[in-house]
């Protein structure tokens, strides 16, 4: 009798259970919404990008190996002038160079902020890096145009426009992203690793180099991926300083172009559905695939090179 009453009470769905169902569904729908957006964009970019090949019958070979970009016209050799190679190379170069240059600086700064002078780091460097994230890329572009390009021209020769200038501008632009994420991952390295290392007679530098950085490697790699992602997607600033010429880059100071810069510049001047427009979407698709590739690559390196925390 008593038991049955209790059983009844326990079997009744409580308000809490309804809450849980509600919350679960709510958060699931938020995720599904994001998924829908992501999928939507990916499908959108993919259909648009692939129609260059399937609707406009451009061959993959022309697209990926051609070096002349003027969609709608033909190259002297009679192929469609949709050679995206210069942009692909430009994007690769500028992204990798920017990442290569800014990673040591970012790590150095992050190490300074967490290991050497945490107080000053938190007081000065952190707000400043957060501030930099918000400066519009146009402003970066103009500072690049009025400071970096003349500097490169006077120091390295050439017109000043080119991958080198793009690298410098991107270096500053992705620095805050990498720094703040590296700081997060350094902070998540338990304090006792540092103590253990110091107690074994390691110097501060040895501790940082051999323990802290090694333990934080996966996090740092993620930071670099995000920095590269930002470099990949950056358009306005790069476009202003890289010269934006669809030429194969011969050196670091000759005008070149990136996928995004061509994409951004061309979008408004083409008509939806035309070959010119589709070709631009193909560039976006390439961008998407390339960032997927980088993502997987770095995750792979991260998994191989580091241990589980």
């Amino acid at each position: 009798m008593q038991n049955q009453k209790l059983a009844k009470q326990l079997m009744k769905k409580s308000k809490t259970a309804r809450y849980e169902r509600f919350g679960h569904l709510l958060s699931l729908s938020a995720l599904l919404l994001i998924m829908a957006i992501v999928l939507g964009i990916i499908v959108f970019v993919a259909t648009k990008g692939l129609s260059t090949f399937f609707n406009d019958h451009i061959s993959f070979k022309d697209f990926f190996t051609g070096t002349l970009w003027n969609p709608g016209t033909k190259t002297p050799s009679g192929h469609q002038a949709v050679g995206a190679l210069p942009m692909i190379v430009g994007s690769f170069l500028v992204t990798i160079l920017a990442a290569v240059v800014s990673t040591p600086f970012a790590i150095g700064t992050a190490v300074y902020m967490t290991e050497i002078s945490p107080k000053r780091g938190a007081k000065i460097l952190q707000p400043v890096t957060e501030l930099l994230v918000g400066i519009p890329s146009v402003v970066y572009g103009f500072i690049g145009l009025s400071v970096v390009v003349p500097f490169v021209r006077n120091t390295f020769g050439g017109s000043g426009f080119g991958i080198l200038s793009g690298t410098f501008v991107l270096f500053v632009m992705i620095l805050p992203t990498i720094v703040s994420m590296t700081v997060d991952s350094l902070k998540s390295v338990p304090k006792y690793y540092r103590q253990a290392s110091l107690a074994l007679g390691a110097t501060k530098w040895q501790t940082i180099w051999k323990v802290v950085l090694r333990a934080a490697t996966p996090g740092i790699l993620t930071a670099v991926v995000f920095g590269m992602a930002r470099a990949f997607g950056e358009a306005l600033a790069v476009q202003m300083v890289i010269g934006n010429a669809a030429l194969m880059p011969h050196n670091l100071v000759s005008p070149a172009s990136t996928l995004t810069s061509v994409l951004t510049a061309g979008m408004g001047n083409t008509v939806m559905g035309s070959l010119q427009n589709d070709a631009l979407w193909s560039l976006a698709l390439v961008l998407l695939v390339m960032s997927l590739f980088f993502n997987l690559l770095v995750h792979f390196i991260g998994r191989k090179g580091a241990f589980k925390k």
Partner: protein
Amino acid sequence: MSDPIITADNLDLYYGDFQALHGIHLDFEPHQISALIGPSGCGKSTFLRCLNRMNDMIDGVTITGMVKFHDQNIYSPQTNLVDLRKEIGMVFQQPNPFPFSVYDNITYGLRIAGVRDKQKLDEIVERSLKQAAVWDEVKDNLYDNALSFSGGQQQRICIARVLAVSPSVILMDEPTSALDPISSAKIENTLLELKKEYTIIIVTHNLQQASRISDKTAFFMEGRVVEYDDTSKMFVNPDNKQTEDYVSGRFG
């Protein structure tokens, strides 16, 4: 009775304005296990960390007085911190192997000291793991991540890591508080073996542990040493009422 290996003399320590240690005077004899006990916040861990200057890392800490290691004041400006910490090793509360392989963990201290000879490293790895009584459990997995072992094994790996740099004193800060009784017992047995070659100073919350393994026990309270004597005396017939209350669990 041999000469003390470490002596703390009139040691005061301040965190900013707060005085955490008051005129500590303690001698530690070689080849003994000395236990530091006392309620939370009594300064026992703080004191332990003074012995290899691990408190130097903390902002706002002021230390006065002397800690002599073989008649040399470790707080003199000439002291080489790195060398000091190689002589006076430390094991921490939480098993804290680096997230590397066991082998890399053990050889860490040697490598940073510049030892590159593979054969020598191998020898030392085997020797110190054996000393720490964990060789049999890890010898087949030397290249596995140290974090994949159990807590007790991790702690013994940490001990081996300290042994690898051949210190003469090992400081231990509650080395078994995160472990289950079986692992604790293994560590305790390890320590009893180690004291033949090393001097061990251990902070512990576990009074039974202090009574089981230590030769001498110091009871700390509010930054002062209340009583320091042979463990057998401390646990049967201490001089001080506070000590008696504490070790018999009637405290607070």
